[in-house]
């Protein structure tokens, strides 16, 4: 008999055996939850309503006759449905959320309490202004802080989010150019910019052209100067930029742009890195939006609401939108609207949203700002930058940091997938991080870096939290570099494995339909 060639394969059991599928599909605290359309009924309700007074209807013959198809649930079922859903989400409250460019910092709960005070939450935007003096004063106080912190001349408070703020800034610029009889057609945007920048410029009728970047990830000043000319209306720059770097030449850029008769728009998404240490107004910027949901920590809410006030230079302020809050010599406050704009703000480009903007975000942001004060906000920027550099230097031996050698980063650290073996990319690192209990960093942005990983830890993370995250990212990066095939299947421990996004786009199912569900069940 020859030597045993097959060996012996042991049973893969542990002391307690392996777990099979459960009856419910649940795995202990990981609970599956059906759609409301599968568990509710149109006759169930969790709300009791008084009976209406008896009267003939005055609906003009248009009373609804067809069913709507809206399922209802009782209150206990509703609370359970959404509580179960909530547990399938990652959130800042659960751990470090290093989504670059999004500034996922802790959301202080005092802000929530204040926003819910009836004096702010339960007032109508069209109440007589005498009855809402405190609300207008909130807008006015926040305006003052934003102007002081940025060193700008004025502020437009009504934009609803960052992209809406960009729109506001460009409309001011366009108005200013038209007022001097010099309409221009081109807006220059760096390739590394957020997608909203070119989209906004196009949305208000401009042609968009790229500005080249230098090898070290900054705007190429010479190339920009060569391109400037009488057709350029504005240059949109993000500073600190999306590579996590401060644009050293910002003042020279502004001077060149102004000399060419154009304006400088700054995307203020990354203001958190410099708040309290640098005032954009000192860099020659004409307009900049501030994402209150980033720098000033109003909650991101699973995709908004945001708020995007725009600070403006003296040259652009006359064109800002209505309404805006004004304080008068006798101490009273007023929203300047259509009625008096003709006298008080005659050159306004008009209104860009119904009502006055995101009041619920203003109360939260003002609360946040008052809590921090000038000293605390400066510390915010310093700690945000310190945390990002700590991550950058702790990982640059294992992950390629394309701009690492050129100096410190600002509040976010940028890595690439350079050096990964064939078949492994940033996506695998991201999905591996999910299994480690983290929300991944921003992937594949900015576009100028191959397989970009943009890590923004924010200032509200402790050193211990950073150390654990660094350890986790190092471990996943090492697995990717070693070509660990298991990583391609990650995540294993999330409520869902990798989802088929191609299928979703090829055969879009955007709403629940009973007939399709029945078909699928067959």
């Amino acid at each position: 008999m020859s030597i045993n060639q097959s060996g012996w394969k042991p049973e893969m059991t542990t002391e307690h055996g392996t777990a099979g599928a459960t009856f419910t599909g649940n795995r202990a605290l990981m609970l599956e939850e059906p759609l409301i359309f599968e568990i509710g009924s149109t006759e169930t309700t969790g709300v009791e309503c008084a009976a209406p007074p008896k009267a003939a209807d005055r609906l003009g013959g248009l009373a609804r006759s067809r069913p709507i198809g809206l399922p209802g649930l009782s209150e206990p079922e509703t609370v359970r449905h959404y509580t179960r859903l909530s547990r399938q989400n990652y959130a800042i409250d659960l751990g470090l959320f290093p989504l670059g460019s999004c500034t996922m910092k802790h959301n202080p709960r005092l802000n929530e309490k204040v926003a819910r005070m009836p004096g702010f939450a339960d007032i109508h935007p069209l109440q007589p202004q005498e009855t809402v003096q405190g609300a207008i004063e909130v807008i006015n106080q926040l305006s003052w802080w934003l102007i002081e912190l940025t060193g700008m001349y004025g502020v437009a408070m009504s934009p609803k989010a960052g992209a809406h703020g960009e729109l506001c800034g460009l409309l001011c610029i366009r108005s200013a150019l038209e007022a001097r009889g010099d309409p221009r057609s081109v807006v220059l945007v760096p390739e590394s910019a957020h997608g909203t920048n070119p989209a906004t410029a196009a949305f208000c009728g401009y042609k968009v052209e790229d500005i080249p970047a230098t090898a070290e990830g900054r705007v190429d000043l010479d190339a920009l100067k060569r391109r400037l000319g009488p057709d350029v209306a504005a240059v949109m720059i993000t500073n600190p930029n999306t590579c996590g770097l401060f644009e050293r030449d910002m003042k020279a850029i502004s001077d060149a742009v102004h000399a060419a008769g154009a304006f400088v728009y700054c995307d203020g998404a990354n203001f958190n890195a410099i708040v309290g240490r640098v005032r954009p107004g000192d860099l020659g910027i004409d307009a900049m939006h501030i994402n209150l949901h980033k720098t000033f920590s109003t909650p991101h809410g699973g995709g908004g609401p945001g708020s995007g006030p725009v600070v403006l230079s003296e040259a652009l302020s006359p064109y800002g939108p209505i309404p805006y809050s004004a304080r008068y010599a006798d101490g009273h406050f007023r929203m300047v609207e259509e009625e008096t704009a003709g006298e008080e703000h005659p050159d306004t480009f008009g209104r860009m949203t119904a009502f006055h903007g995101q009041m619920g975000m203003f109360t939260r942001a003002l609360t946040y700002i008052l809590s921090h004060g000038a000293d605390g906000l400066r510390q915010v920027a310093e700690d945000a930058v310190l945390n990002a550099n700590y991550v950058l230097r702790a990982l640059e031996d294992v992950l390629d940091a394309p701009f690492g050698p050129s100096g410190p980063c600002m509040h976010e650290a940028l890595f690439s997938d350079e050096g990964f073996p064939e078949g492994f990319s940033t996506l695998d690192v991201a999905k591996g991080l999910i299994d480690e209990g983290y929300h991944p960093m921003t992937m594949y942005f900015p576009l100028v870096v191959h397989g970009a990983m943009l890590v923004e830890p924010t200032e509200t993370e402790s050193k211990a939290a950073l150390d654990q995250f660094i350890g986790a990212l190092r471990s996943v990066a090492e697995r990717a570099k070693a070509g660990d095939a298991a990583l391609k299947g990650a995540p294993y421990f999330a409520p869902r494995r990798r989802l088929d996004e191609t299928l979703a786009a090829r055969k879009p199912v955007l709403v629940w339909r009973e007939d399709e569900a029945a078909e699928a069940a067959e």
Partner: protein
Amino acid sequence: MRYLPLTPDDRSAMLGSIGVKSIDDLFVDVPAAAQLAGPIAGLPMHASELAVERHMAALARKNLTAGEAPFFLGCGAYKHHVPASVDHIIQRGEFLTAYTPYQPEIAQGTLQMLFEFQTQVARLTGCDVANASMYDGSTACWEAIVMARRITKRGKAILSDGLHPHYVSVARTMAKFTGDVLDLSLPTLVPETDAERLLGAIDGETSCVVVQYPDILGRIGDLSEIAARAHEKGALLIAVVTEPVALGALKSPGEMGADIVVGEGQSIGVGLQFGGPYVGLFACQEKFVRQMPGRLCGETVDAEGKRGFVLTLSTREQHIRREKATSNICTNSGLCALAFSIHMTLLGERGLRDLAALNHGLAVDAAERLAAVPGVELVNDSFFNEFTLRLSKEARPVVRDLADKGILAGVSLGRLYPDGEGRENGLVVAVTETSTHEDVDALCAGLKEVLA
């Protein structure tokens, strides 16, 4: 500072690991001239939670809240009772402190909620599909006009005179810059909507007709004929709904042929909040889905074949298409969409219909009582929970005088249309389930006194 976990020792240790001496070494790329040496002069320093709460509470106390007064304001923002569980659920950290679901494996809670929201909005409006929300009704309305331009490749939009004047203003602002042509008119205090004008204006150049339902004066007009005429001329009908509770009692715009239905969702689940944040609703018929703005959530399966949800059709969006995107919108109104969806789930069809019937019944009752006050005349034949009164005096000072008596009487048309021309005596009054019989008594008595 209570929100910053790093200790001075941590900071020194971390600077050491990085290999620099001080924090200033990390700001070397900022030109010295632009750096501030210390905290900005003249600004207050940090403050305790107690001190900040006191400061903010003092500001809050200066406002007369809707809950403290007989309250009748509407015109695009409505006071409804929001069940306590709505606010409880939206404060769960997993919803409140998450972001746009870019990583679907750990965002199924938000994604499934959005899928449910999209379905609720589509069904309510009578459309095939809906998106994951816009900023508010007014911006959703302009986005719909832009979408109609893309679909029809025409640039003239006809706006009904019953469209909320702020929505008209937003469209006017944008059209100034985009070159879109707007056919506009101002409302008069008559019972009929401007359907006749719209029917006459639709031509082969028209991209869309925009009609609010019920309109700014509360009037309800049939959309079917306008839809038919628009379609005959190759144009789209955009219906705008600022009070979604109305759709519990009224035929949906989709049923009457609307191609796109946009709306303000604030009434359901979102409080008044002095105008924002609110939640824009955006629904349309299936064939236009690839021209929609904003995020869309879609169903799919994971690697094990389990149902799951993802953001989809993103090739319409700015982060992929950049200047060729259908819109520049990024962050939308996720948490308000959640509040809307929870409230709608609590209501269900039965609850929504009951709520709508109650609103309408109370409004009919109130309209009759108010019309009996000397100097007050009801303009509307038809209305849902909001109607227009013609007063014997200019409404604006009347509203102010009533506010002095602690009554928030409604919206004077002079506030919305400062140019007068017969509208200045108009008062738009909204009556919801929150308005009591005694509130209406107080309004009747107040008007009687002020108009005498």
